[in-house]
């Protein structure tokens, strides 16, 4: 079965809808990590992972509260 409305992005248009979980999965877990004293230590993986874990429970209710059907239906 193919799920209906997950919009594969047809273009690079910035206005497209992208499921938040898929987005965070990439912008916070992907990309090049710069380490060293030239940056702040914010890009630290552990910190982000921990931070996201603390968010997990609230995400669902937050999405529900929004009635954000797309994000809720398509992680």
């Amino acid at each position: 079965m193919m799920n209906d409305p997950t919009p594969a992005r047809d273009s690079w248009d910035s206005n497209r809808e992208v499921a938040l979980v898929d987005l965070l999965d990439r912008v916070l877990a992907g990309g090049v990590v710069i380490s060293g004293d030239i940056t702040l230590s914010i890009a630290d993986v552990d910190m982000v992972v921990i931070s996201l874990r603390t968010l997990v429970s609230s995400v669902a209710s937050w999405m529900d509260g929004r009635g954000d059907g797309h994000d809720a239906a398509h992680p």
Partner: protein
Amino acid sequence: MTAAEGLWAYAVLSGGSADSRTNGLRGVANERVHVITSGDLATAVGTVPLSRFGEEALRHNLEDLDWLAATARAHDAVVSQLAGSGPVVPLRMTTVFLAERGVTDLLVQHADDFDAALRLVSDRQEWGVKAYADPQALVSEPESAAKTSGTAYLLRRKRELSSKEEAYRVASDAARRVHETLTLHAVDAKRKPVSDQSLSGRTGSVVLNGTYLVDNSNVAAFRCAVDELAETIAGIDLDLTGPWPPYSFTGDVVG
């Protein structure tokens, strides 16, 4: 840039056309995106207030889902638009430099790595495929006409207990088949960790969180393969997302 400001970094790109590619882009603070160039490379950055994007502010703001969602979308919008105009190496969101010197040092120190990464992702896109399995749908319970005997009952009961385990085995096999098939249509492929179930709001279990680096010329074939798998493998739902900038395929090259 003042002491109260930092440079929020989006991505590294080739220096030559970097100015025109960033022209008109607005970033996470609605700031103008500009480039810092060194040699043949450039980094797309935006000047942001540290009161909102500095280390302390970020630690606090990352816990605010509205803020996180809006910032992630704004960050991705810049990186995606850059990806639409040529090869791009995304930097992890929340990379903030305190001085322009830090950006140029980065480009100088890792010039070869960034060159290699840009070559790797040239004329390619990242596509994501998630597979959801409904354990109940995977194993059909055979309904026999007569189940009156004690032996028949015990057999049926045993089958029920093992069916869930069996369903997960079938689902994992299906996920492996999907991933192996899609890998054939990609130049690189990864099985990412499965996101927390409570984030999904779906009932099916995620059995595959795959992401694929696909030649632009092969995207149509890749999407056909996804459709075909979705039709031929029962009890499994596939979600396709993309095109993404190559977020998942550049981290290994640079570092």
